[in-house]
């Protein structure tokens, strides 16, 4: 085993082993083991990153005769692996506080380790089959995590739904993988190259796209992500921020060389559409985590769109920045929820995630507030924050793409992207205002000293600081200035200078949109405004658009209808089967039996009769003959003696 394999195995196995150890041993010490192992895994991933900068590592091994599987760790994979390890480490740390006192905390850490292992394996796998295996492992371990509180039946059902929707999309991935491996003989991701167009390739591309959509919660499949909020909040941070949902984007990014233009176009369009729809849905949510969930979907839409329009390096950049600020947002939301849980621990029916109950947390949780604010600004795309940089790249890429193609769909995508860019600051501003400003709408006497302990604060602050522009690029206005970009994408990062004008237009437009969005949200949701006051009565949004947004375009109801439809179809076909097909078969059977009865009579009376007659004849003859040589031993002996005498006499005389 050479160094590469050792580093790699340590990186992916340490989290798993730590988690398993915790699960086996249990107790507080075990948790420390899991966290320590995760830390070790993170360090190992950094070492791995440093060692693959010059030369990617490709590890192949024979699986069954004729099939080779393999790992491929290039800089992209290594960067993302260290990102995942980092976020996971932070989540481990945060959970120590957040999950404190849960009776199944050892199981929680076991699942966390398992999930981290699956995700790292997914990032590192080179062969499509291996990728699929880890893809499924990720889905399964996320199911375990989401359904962590499985004794609450609602949460268990949420986990099941999330898992099932994933499975539906995974069918697309499976089709794509099988087509690639079997029909096109494309086995290894690291060996992908441009291929001539063929219908099979197109089909495979669509398959991969559907799989990616499922994992990244794109348009038809995005219903599962809000459902996944049933899990513990740190899990939401882990799943939504950096890891599982990024898998789809990562897949598209990796396979974009073989994706056909049609697939890319559909990808771009669906990405834009998802971004817009999810942003609209996020506008009216009251659940603090649901807002973030829809925002995640919206941001993922951006990334998918970025891949679709060819700005994949910006997509990856956005994936990177989004990982930090979204994880930060979720963890701060977790801190808020934690606070409300403890403030209202005497009241069981209280919904600790409902923003209508919140307000005024700015003074009670100052650190949390600052972290949330910075991360929120990054999300909304304000300059000097990381989000601005990466989103800038995607928007400009979309504009360049639309201009380059010049068709209506392209411009539609651009419009959707920009509208989303305006909606994002609106809903995040609304959230900040509702949660942190004004006065508390339920708790009259603020509970002091609820600021989280140091390790949690550290976690939040690390994530917040990482969202400042300086940690992503030196120039706060250069969307392509990611200092990891040169490392990852060689030199073709800079777009053509001919599009310099478009870049400036994009930048100006987005800054205007962001600021106006923020202003609008302040105007509408500023403390003591009419809308905010109405929340005390817990109203729901009215009007068509409001309902559409609050129910997330009724996408889940559509799922329900579809499944009901399938049920009805199957019931109907069951009835048809039973009433018509079975009847006719029964009829055929009965007629056969009747015919057979008739034949039996013929057989018995005529055919058997002949045989019986023959038997009777021979028996009669036999009976007659039996009298002669009766079957009695002594009679036969008598005959024997007689013949002995006769023979003796004959010899004698």
């Amino acid at each position, binding site marked *: 085993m050479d160094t590469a394999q050792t580093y790699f195995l340590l990186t992916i196995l340490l989290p798993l082993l730590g988690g398993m150890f915790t699960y086996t041993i249990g107790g507080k010490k075990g948790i420390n083991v899991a966290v320590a192992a995760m830390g070790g895994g993170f360090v190992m991933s950094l070492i791995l990153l440093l060692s693959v900068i010059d030369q990617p590592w490709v590890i192949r091994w024979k699986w069954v005769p004729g099939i080779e599987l393999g790992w491929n760790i290039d800089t992209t994979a290594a960067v993302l692996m260290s990102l995942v390890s980092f976020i996971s480490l932070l989540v481990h740390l945060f959970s120590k506080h957040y999950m404190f006192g849960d009776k199944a905390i050892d199981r929680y850490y076991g699942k966390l380790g398992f999930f981290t292992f699956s995700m790292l394996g997914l990032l590192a796998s080179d062969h499509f089959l291996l990728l699929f295996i880890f893809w499924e492992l990720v889905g399964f371990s996320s199911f375990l995590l989401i359904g962590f509180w499985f004794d609450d039946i609602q949460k268990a059902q949420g986990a099941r739904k999330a898992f099932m929707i994933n499975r539906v999309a995974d069918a697309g991935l499976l089709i794509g993988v099988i087509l690639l491996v079997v029909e096109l003989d494309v086995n290894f991701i690291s060996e992908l190259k441009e291929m001539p167009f063929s219908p099979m390739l197109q089909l495979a591309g669509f398959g991969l796209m559907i799989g990616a959509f499922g994992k990244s919660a794109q348009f038809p499949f995005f219903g599962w992500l809000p459902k996944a909020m049933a899990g513990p909040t740190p899990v939401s941070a882990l799943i939504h921020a950096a890891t599982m949902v990024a898998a789809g984007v990562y897949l598209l990014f990796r396979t974009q060389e073989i994706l056909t233009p049609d697939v890319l176009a559909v990808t771009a369009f669906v990405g834009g559409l998802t971004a817009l729809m999810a942003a609209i849905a996020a506008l009216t949510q009251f659940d603090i985590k649901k807002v973030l969930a829809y925002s995640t979907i919206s941001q993922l839409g951006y990334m998918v769109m970025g891949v679709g329009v060819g700005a994949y390096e910006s997509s990856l950049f956005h994936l990177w920045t989004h990982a930090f600020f979204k994880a930060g947002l979720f963890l701060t939301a977790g801190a808020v929820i934690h606070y409300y849980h403890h403030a209202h621990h005497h009241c069981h029916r209280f919904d600790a995630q409902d923003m209508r109950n919140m307000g005024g947390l700015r003074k009670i949780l100052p650190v949390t507030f600052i972290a949330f604010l910075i991360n929120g600004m990054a999300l909304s795309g304000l300059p000097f924050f990381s989000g601005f940089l990466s989103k800038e790249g995607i928007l400009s890429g979309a504009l360049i793409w639309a201009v380059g193609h010049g068709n209506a769909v392209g411009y539609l995508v651009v419009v959707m992207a920009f509208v989303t860019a305006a909606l994002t600051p609106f809903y995040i501003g609304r959230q900040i205002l509702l949660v942190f400003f004004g006065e508390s709408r339920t708790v009259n006497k603020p509970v002091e000293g609820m600021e989280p302990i140091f390790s949690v604060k550290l976690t939040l602050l690390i994530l917040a600081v990482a969202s400042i522009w300086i940690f992503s690029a030196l120039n706060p206005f250069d969307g392509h200035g990611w200092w990891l970009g040169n490392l990852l994408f060689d030199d073709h990062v800079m777009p053509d200078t001919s599009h310099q004008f478009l870049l400036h237009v994009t930048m100006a437009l987005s800054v205007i949109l962001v600021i106006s969005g923020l202003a609008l949200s302040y105007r509408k949701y500023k403390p003591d405004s009419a809308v905010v006051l109405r929340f005390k009565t817990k109203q729901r949004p009215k009007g068509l658009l409001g309902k559409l947004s609050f129910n997330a375009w009724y996408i889940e109801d559509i799922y329900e209808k579809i499944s009901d439809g399938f049920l009805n179809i199957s019931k109907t076909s069951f009835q048809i089967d039973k009433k018509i097909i079975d009847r006719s078969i029964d009829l055929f059977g009965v007629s056969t039996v009747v015919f057979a009865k008739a034949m039996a009579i013929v057989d018995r009376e005529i055919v058997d009769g002949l045989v019986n007659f023959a038997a009777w004849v021979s028996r009669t003859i036999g009976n007659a003959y039996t009298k002669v040589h009766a079957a009695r031993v*002594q*009679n036969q002996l*008598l005959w024997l*003696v*007689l013949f*002995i*005498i006769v023979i*003796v*006499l004959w010899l*004698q005389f």
Partner: protein
Amino acid sequence: MSSWLIIGFTLVIVVPILYMIFTSNIIRAAYAFTLSLLGLAAIYVLLKAELMAVVQIMIYAGGVVVLLIFGIMLTRRQKGMELVTLHRDVALGAGFCMILYALFVSWIGESGLAFTEELVELNQVKTIGISFLTNHILSFEIIAFLLLVALVGAAFLAKKTDSI
């Protein structure tokens, strides 16, 4: 003296056999058979075949007849019914056997096998024992094996289960 003894023991043989032929009581027939066997043993003694006589008593009278009586008792023990057997084809059988006996007698008369000289005394047990283990060792072993196989087979056949 010796001749009269022989004739006396001949009667001990013949009379029970005649009784066996005419009786229908199996148990009594078996005991009559035993008596004739003892008579035969006596004849053997008079023929200077002491070992043969003892073997006759030991195996026939002590073994085979006990087995036969056991067989009779086992087959008829349930009911208190009379232990009788019927005769069949008496005339035919008797006729044939008489003819056969007549033929035998006529042959024996014709054959002239009438040795009278007698051998010197010798230790019969020793002679026979040495013969068993020298000239007739193969037959001896085979007969021993046959006996073993027959007894095992008989035990297997007669055991209670019906799985034959």
